[in-house]
């Protein structure tokens, strides 16, 4: 019985996202996404919920896309990076805020982990300089055209290793830098922590 039931469940799961992805609701968010997608057919767009929209863009056209969206989305709030280590990719999320429409947009793009390179968006939003320096420092992504990439917040020895990458071994690093007096896993130590 169990064996027969399982495939049915999987079929259902496969069907659902296809239907959802293609519909854009008749709200201001839906119209906004539809308008942008008309100008940029290479991107994928969807509405997450009220006042939250999402785009997926290939990395080689990201600058073009952001230039286009900057007409509606006047403000760059953050550039956050996700390290998908199994897929060997960094995902960059440009978080945009539309002052005129009060809508928050995620623009997602993926670049390969090795020698990750992207064009800078400083000429669209000057504030991007800081966010790009941060992403460069913690993940080692290179933004071509940003003149101030380099050590920013971290000590130089941490900057070399890009500590927010998933393959950075924080525990081993902390032990070599700060000494082994505090080992959480070794209960025989006198200074056992937590």
């Amino acid at each position: 019985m169990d064996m027969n039931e399982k495939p049915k469940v999987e079929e259902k799961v496969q069907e659902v996202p296809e239907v959802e992805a293609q519909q854009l609701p008749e709200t201001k968010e839906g119209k906004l996404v539809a308008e942008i997608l008309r100008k940029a057919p290479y991107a994928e767009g969807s509405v997450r919920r009220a006042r939250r929209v999402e785009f997926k863009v290939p990395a080689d056209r990201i600058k073009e896309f952001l230039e286009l969206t900057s007409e509606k989305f006047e403000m760059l709030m953050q550039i956050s990076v996700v390290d998908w280590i199994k897929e060997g990719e960094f995902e960059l999320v440009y978080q945009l805020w539309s002052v005129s429409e009060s809508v928050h947009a995620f623009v997602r793009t993926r670049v390969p982990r090795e020698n990750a390179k992207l064009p800078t968006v400083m000429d669209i939003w000057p504030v991007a300089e800081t966010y790009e320096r941060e992403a460069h420092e913690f993940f080692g992504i290179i933004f071509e055209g940003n003149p101030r990439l380099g050590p920013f917040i971290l000590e130089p020895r941490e900057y070399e290793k890009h500590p927010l990458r998933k393959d950075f071994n924080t525990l081993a690093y902390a032990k070599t830098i700060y000494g082994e007096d505090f080992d959480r896993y070794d209960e025989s130590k006198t200074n056992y922590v937590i």
Partner: protein
Amino acid sequence: MSEMKNDDFVNYELREFKLFEPLFRWARKKSLWIVAFCTGCGGIEMPPLATARYDFERFGIMPNPAPRMGDLFLITGYVTPKTLKRIIITYEMMQDPKYVLAHGSCPINGGVYWDSYNVVKQLDKYIPVDVAIAGCMPRAEAVMEGIMEIMRKIEDGTADGWKRYKENYEWYKKNQDELFGEGWREKDARRWLAWI
């Protein structure tokens, strides 16, 4: 007299004023000036401590912007290597006698950042700590209790971190150099303080 070393001077000073020492200690205890250097989340406990509810000024405690005029140094939370450089320089700028009060579990053993790459695990290795308050974060009552404790210790002469720092300076310096690399004072500190 020209061969008098730093230690001799401390001893000499102590010998000379022995008679008045209880009076001095009482006076020191009653007029703690805080060097405001809020490093971490614990700093948020300072406003309730200073304002009407707990009002630490009734104990003669006062926040004070200049290290040269302060004698109580509060380390209010986690310490990163970058902050620690500034902390050490500020601590060395302060006049003797000076006392250090560490808030929260972060300066004691790293607290929730126990395996973080940029939080110093044990502040006591780099500067002497007189009283440490456990807890994450310690409430204003706990900080008050810590200040009471440091007052008691000043009165009976056991708050002697400033003396320990002088006596064991080699050890502290070794730890600091291990963390920052040799010559960090010349390289970094001189950029902020030209006279070092």
